[in-house]
């Protein structure tokens, strides 16, 4: 009996030992869906080109801005506005990749601070959502004493796209450059330089991070697939909350917060929201049979995939009915905004429950033990 016991132990240990050896590469392909190919597609066709384009748009913005700052005028302002819009739209295309190099750079905090989701949106005085901290900006200009690398809400709210939004496009923006000109120009340049530097860092960071990204096909918290699904859900949460629902007064019994719209002064909030959601769909679909859409089908969830695609289109078509500037539409046609809001919530539900569950991804931005 003892011998038999030891034999069993030996065999089981041997099996365990073999099972624990290092992986030979490229073997998950043969029986099912190739996740490495999916991640490779995302990296090479969507993420890396997205950041490369972002670098270029920042360069264009910087040169348009320099022209304006050298001689502020209405024409120059219009040029800056177009470059600003292009850069901002491009940012929406990479906003959902807030992990890896972007997480290291804290790109979302410094470029386009959303205020986070954990704040009450019921008082207009507080800095929440896509607010701009105009006091801090003016103070920074006057004192010349600031460090844009500071990690604080007022620091995030006084740089990046929101700060440029105020500096270039707020009422009387051009006139403001005629007093304390040197300091105001210097601050504007500092903001743009910092944005360009961060974007460059992330873009070059992906050269090294790419191999790590495509090699990890796990789905746990912090894995590339886990991050992608969580970021899609998070961007949906931002759409439902700070981008549309909260300025509309969903949290506040209909009290509208028009100034908290994304890009309030420039007035193309809806265009940004559409670009954001269009890009989420692009991420979901992927391409060439490589993407979450194809993955769900491979797992036998064809109907779910159809429903998600249809809901993306439903939400997008409702979004497209909202006229810009959103800050006006919130009061003139709240029902149009509300209609989009409802479709976005449906899509969010599908992503958070059906898609996350089918891909075995935990929707949580925090690590924890389970069961």
């Amino acid at each position: 009996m003892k011998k038999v016991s030891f034999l069993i132990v030996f065999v089981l240990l041997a099996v365990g030992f073999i099972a624990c050896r290092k992986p030979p590469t490229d073997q998950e392909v043969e029986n099912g869906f190739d996740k490495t190919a999916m991640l490779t597609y995302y990296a090479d066709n969507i993420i890396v080109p997205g950041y490369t384009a972002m670098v270029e748009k920042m360069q264009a913005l910087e040169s348009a801005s320099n022209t304006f700052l050298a001689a502020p005028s209405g024409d120059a302002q219009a040029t800056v506005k177009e470059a600003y819009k292009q850069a901002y739209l491009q940012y929406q295309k990479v906003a959902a990749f807030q992990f890896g190099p972007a997480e290291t750079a804290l790109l979302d905090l410094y470029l386009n601070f959303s205020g986070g989701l954990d704040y009450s949106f019921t008082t207009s005085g507080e800095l929440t959502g896509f607010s701009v901290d105009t006091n801090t900006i003016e103070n920074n200009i006057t004192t010349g004493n600031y460090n844009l690398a500071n990690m604080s809400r007022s620091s995030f709210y006084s740089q990046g796209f929101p700060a440029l939004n105020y500096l270039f496009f707020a009422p009387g923006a051009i006139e403001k450059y005629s007093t304390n000109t040197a300091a105001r120009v210097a601050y504007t340049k500092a903001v743009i330089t910092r944005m360009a530097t961060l974007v460059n860092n992330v873009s070059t960071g992906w050269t090294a991070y790419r191999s790590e990204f495509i090699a990890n096909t796990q789905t746990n918290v912090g894995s590339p697939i886990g991050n992608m699904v969580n970021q899609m859900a998070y961007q949906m949460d931002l759409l439902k909350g700070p981008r549309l629902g909260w300025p509309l007064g969903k949290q506040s019994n209909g009290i509208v917060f028009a100034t908290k719209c994304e890009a309030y002064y420039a007035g193309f909030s809806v265009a940004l929201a559409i670009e954001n959601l269009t890009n989420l769909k692009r991420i979901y679909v992927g391409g060439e049979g490589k993407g979450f859409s194809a993955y769900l089908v491979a797992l036998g969830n064809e109907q779910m995939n159809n429903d998600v695609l249809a809901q993306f289109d439903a939400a997008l078509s409702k979004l497209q009915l909202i006229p810009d500037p959103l800050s006006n539409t919130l009061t003139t046609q709240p029902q149009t905004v509300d209609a989009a809001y409802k479709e976005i919530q449906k899509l969010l539900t599908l992503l958070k429950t059906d898609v996350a569950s089918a891909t075995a991804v935990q929707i949580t931005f925090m690590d924890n033990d389970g069961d």
Partner: protein
Amino acid sequence: MADSILNYVKSLRDRQVSIAPLVTFRIVFGLLMFAGILRFWWRGWITSVYVLPEFHFTYTGFDWVKPLRADGMHLLFALIALAALFIALGFLYRVATVIFFLGFTYVELIDATTYLNHYYFISLVAFLLIFLPANRDYSIDARVRPGIRRKFVPAWCIGIIRFQLGIVYFFAGLAKLNVDWLFNAQPMRTWLPAKTHLPIVGPYMYEAWVAYLFSWFGAIYDLFIVFFLLNRRTTLAAYAVVVIFHVATAIFFPGIGMFPYVMISCTLIYFSGAFHEKLLSLLPFYRKGSEVTVYRYKYPKALSWGISIYILIQLIVPLRFLAYPGKLFWNEEGYRFSWRVMLMEKSGAAYFKVTNKEKTQYFEVNNAEFLTPLQEKMMSTQPDMIVKYAHFLADEYKKRGVNEPQVYAEIYVLLNGDRSKLFVDTSVNLAAQPQGFVHYSWVLPYNRK
């Protein structure tokens, strides 16, 4: 029935066996708990789970349990860790076990969203250890006061821990005997395709038969492993299976944390006294004793009753779900404290709306304002937490000036590879619904497609 149980308990109470298994158990359990507490601390979970949240999902009857502030919470964890270390060393054992049990249980009672089966198991074992003479040999206590040293203890001292572990496995096995687990291989079919990165076995994770194999093997293992551990002739082989099984679960499901290691360590208790004496003699300072020194309890009658009641509670609590109508996995009435481990895949999205009594005001609730992501995730699928949160929201919005707030929820929940479905009646004011052990009639019935 009650008589035969009492007689069996009596024999366990009076028969004397080697103390060695209990000593090993004490050391292993203490060290593991020490490591576990440090791990929890090191990962920053004391702060993220107990300090940062402004609202906690307390247990019915334990609403008075509140977290301490940051300093106090860390101090409490330090105290629990120290107590665990003292248990391992057998130093001030009785005090250490009482502190560990109370401290650990207090922490677990703070928030139901952190409930884990193995935390409950740890609390139970810690409670038992208070009454077990595990420090009577190879301990600092016995070193300082050689008079308390004993080589034999009543058989129930070992038996009760074996019973407790047996309960964990057996009920975990019983819980798996359901249609989803056995005949749809859910949730394994959902979870395994996410494990294709594993070496060797990875490519097979998309295969349905593998999910069935995992499900059936898991159920059979849970149901029967205890009997092979108890049988002297198969203990060793069964233990090898225990080790391999739990190492495999740790590799496949790293998210279950300490559980595999708790089980691997604790099941050592099934080995014989002779085995443990041999094991302990490998350690420094261990002295074999030829003298027959026997540990006796002062109040045998009270002890018999105590043990019997404990055993009955352990047998009844996991079955209490039978008293509730509806589908257990959907309603989760009587789900916790029943050894349902890694049993289902459930996810949800919950949207709450608050109105005043006159229905002239509408506020959509931003869950992130009140809950951590972990709390929100847990609350979204568990009715008792949903209703507790609704009551909290009513209080909160009352403070904000809303007249007699009413709370309505639109919640979608997905269970075991099905699609997400509406979970609760959207027309019910949840803030007016009773909490506690009642049946939640506002949860919509479960209909599979």
